[in-house]
């Protein structure tokens, strides 16, 4: 079937979908890059630099949202780290803003007061945390208790 209704013709709703997640420090060093879209390496590098340029110039009086190419970046700063999620322009800003915070709280529990160095030395574990909470560009699990229980279980495996 080609057409559904008039309402939909005007604004096609895309599903909640994350294009990429980036964690960068203020100097622009990437601490995590998770891509949910195909990019070649040059393009990834360019995106990383652009996001850094866009996000770091903003201050606390600004919103946590920035238009970015044809998408938007939802970001929040924690100490020297910027957690950025790139989504479609009509996605729900606040839902992602809190998804970031939820993720940060999990990292904080998991690494016991997480700091930037934890993400550097345990980069391969951070990917596991991400995959527990976000998969295929969608939010997979939101319960901190459930995620931490699973991480603890994985931790105990050899």
């Amino acid at each position, binding site marked *: 079937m080609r057409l559904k209704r008039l309402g939909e013709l005007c604004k096609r709703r895309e599903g909640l979908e994350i294009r990429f997640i980036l964690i960068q420090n203020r100097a622009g060093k990437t601490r995590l890059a998770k891509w949910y879209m195909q990019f070649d390496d040059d393009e990834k590098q360019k995106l990383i630099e652009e996001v850094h340029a866009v996000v770091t110039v903003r201050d606390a009086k600004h919103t946590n949202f920035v238009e970015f190419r044809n998408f938007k970046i939802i970001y929040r700063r924690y100490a020297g780290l910027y957690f950025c999620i790139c989504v479609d322009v009509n996605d729900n800003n606040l*839902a992602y803003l809190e998804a970031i915070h939820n993720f940060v709280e999990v990292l904080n529990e*998991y690494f016991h007061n997480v700091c930037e160095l934890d993400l550097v030395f345990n980069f391969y574990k951070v990917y596991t945390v991400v995959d527990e909470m976000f998969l295929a560009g969608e939010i997979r699990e939101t319960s901190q208790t459930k995620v931490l229980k699973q991480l603890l279980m*994985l931790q105990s495996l050899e």
Partner: protein
Amino acid sequence: MPAVSKGDGMRGLAVFISDIRNCKSKEAEIKRINKELANIRSKFKGDKALDGYSKKKYVCKLLFIFLLGHDIDFGHMEAVNLLSSNKYTEKQIGYLFISVLVNSNSELIRLINNAIKNDLASRNPTFMCLALHCIANVGSREMGEAFAADIPRILVAGDSMDSVKQSAALCLLRLYKASPDLVPMGEWTARVVHLLNDQHMGVVTAAVSLITCLCKKNPDDFKTCISLAVSRLSRIVSSASTDLQDYTYYFVPAPWLSVKLLRLLQCYPPPEDAAVKGRLVECLETVLNKAQEPPKSKKVQHSNAKNAILFETISLIIHYDSEPNLLVRACNQLGQFLQHRETNLRYLALESMCTLASSEFSHEAVKTHIDTVINALKTERDVSVRQRAADLLYAMCDRSNAKQIVSEMLRYLETADYAIREEIVLKVAILAEKYAVDYSWYVDTILNLIRIAGDYVSEEVWYRVLQIVTNRDDVQGYAAKTVFEALQAPACHENMVKVGGYILGEFGNLIAGDPRSSPPVQFSLLHSKFHLCSVATRALLLSTYIKFINLFPETKATIQAVLRAGSQLRNADVELQQRAVEYLTLSSVASTDVLATVLEEMPPFPERESSILAKLKRKKGPGAGSALDDGRRDPSSNDINGGVEPTPSTVSTPSPSADLLGLRAAPPPAAPPASAGAGNLLVDVFDGPAAQPSLGPTPEEAFLSPGPEDIGPPIPEADELLNKFVCKNNGVLFENQLLQIGVKSEFRQNLGRMYLFYGNKTSVQFQNFSPTVVHPGDLQTQLAVQTKRVAAQVDGGAQVQQVLNIECLRDFLTPPLLSVRFRYGGAPQAFTLKLPVTINKFFQPTEMAAQDFFQRWKQLSLPQQEAQKIFKANHPMDAEVTKAKLLGFGSALLDNVDPNPENFVGAGIIQTKALQVGCLLRLEPNAQAQMYRLTLRTSKEPVSRHLCELLAQQF
């Protein structure tokens, strides 16, 4: 809770990372890395078999090096080996390496797939999840081919663990998005919908995403999800803040799941079942009520989570656009946010209100916030918030507040950020034109624009003011007077000189009676600017001068002297020199009569879509041409729609894909008056454009209202207008100075419904307004069109809507005609258009595999079943645009059918009441020759030919 020490488990890795961090320079880092690479290489090549731990450690180091930005060209095999380890930590590193680095090493894919297959079959939930995450992260077609059939089984199997189901759902989503053809629909789909009832909220969270994606393509198959989603939502929304335990986030029950459910519901119209609908409305009301309750926590997380749900609720209310009460409540809620201390909320409220402004139910409510929004425009610190405020003002603008809004925007323009000036200029120009009751206000506004932000006034804007002044004789004298005054300013923008030059050249005679603006004064004023202007402007001024010679013979000697001056006749610029020479000769050899004929006043410009609108649309979707470009929304469609009319009154193309990409070769920006442009000025002066007013009053109006049979022939542009709608269903069908006709239509099977919106652009009431649909020839037996009568009077600035119900009885070749008649200021108006109903609207896309396609292709091999056309490309050859057009045309696009990936292959069935016509098509672009070959095969001969003709005109 678990604590993790630095690099526990892999000391060597931690040491290596420390070393890298201690490197003082890039060179030192590279040196250290090369040393490590050599070490790892020798270990991998060494005779001694490495144990799993070492292998894991080295693979992990390689990964780290890669993530630092260095190329890695070995280690893939070792990583693949890790996949078959039975230790979780080793397997995990193996999968991570594969997920991050796999694309380059496809020869390993078989080995990888094998390992994944084993893990999927292992019944060990941890291993199954690792494998599923790997598929979801890579998402390649090869993996889709290998696993698309297994994953649905895992997803709905009774004995799958919850965490496995979560991963399987999203893994399937990824594969479906990447290659929908690979995911077989079947018995599992019904069971997937029931995951909405699952006890585990995490499973529901993942499943909603999958269902949302699936139901977009197959809405009917997943309809049952509506009631399930509503009841799930209702349970969440009405639960107390602690009921959901693990899924309560800062006292808000399951915020993300609620948002996802609300988005799922936005894939559908309001529920038909009254009980379900009642329950949903109750939910929406509860959310709105909760927004008014005092917060349960002072934390921003609490209010953000709560408001995430609120904004999604409002989106759903806007999407339904049918509950006036809820719309107004939503608007009031957003109104409170407009003054909230959180910048985020002010921003989101402005953004959301922009869409509310386009609903007829809430437009008035939005307008009450005008002062707050104007204040936001003046005081917000974040430019993106100011931009939203400008968008909202634009959206809420109508005849009642246009003057206020335009003047506020003009004021803002003086201090606006450079980044958004051009957009504001365009918006002001559009509003000024759209809501101009008296055109002197319009002229003032545009001249103000040039004064305040001349650099940002693009050609489209000043072309447009010239078009309008040329077409409206009531404003010409005023325009001449105003530009004359504006040019007095010691420093005026070059765009002002251009507009001034053109207008005085055409209408300077209207103010020549006043000694203060006598012809010599006009001339010396213009000429005082001449030397500081660019070549293009000087060229334009030279044309003004020759027009002056015609208008004011007394200036002839002075002007000839100017033309004759060495600086003109021997100008280094060829264009200027040629103009000077030719104008000088023309003024000397031509008799006054000839001169008067050659330099006659410009005829009115044909009315088309405003070039400024086209420009704004282009601007809103910048063609960065990057990989991120796809899936773009068209932000302007909201804004532009944002006037009073809840219809695409001024948007010409709200069709989803093609235009959003901004790639559609936009209709050439409403033929700017060529004569105002620089280069071709000369040609125009002599040739005189043959433009005619598109809508002349019919010569003699019949005394009796004519029957529908004796309508006139379609207007000359009718075919062109019709062609615009072959691949899309919405847009502006017709527009002239008086009337705009917008179309929205939807088709399903052999039925269609079309909404026609007739907008009176003038301030005067139309009388005896009667649009009728006529079936020429045999069409009556082929197509049934039911229309409702519309009111015979259309007030100035008002819009009336006409609904057409269409049924396709059998295949047809000619579209029905739409005859529009009315009286405007006593003068009868009549014209006939072609209604955009073409046979392809009744296409039902058909997916099929390659072999089926070829089999059917062969079955339709009679020569008369095939129609073929070879033609030159009229638009840039862009595969994405072509795809969008073919989809808009209605056929399914079949991938991997044609051996040549450049070619497009499609299939569909034309549904008519009497019969169905199967159609196959193939489009072969030849980029080198800029040609296409289009082949259509259908079971009915005239249909092949007709479709071929229709489609060929689209490229």
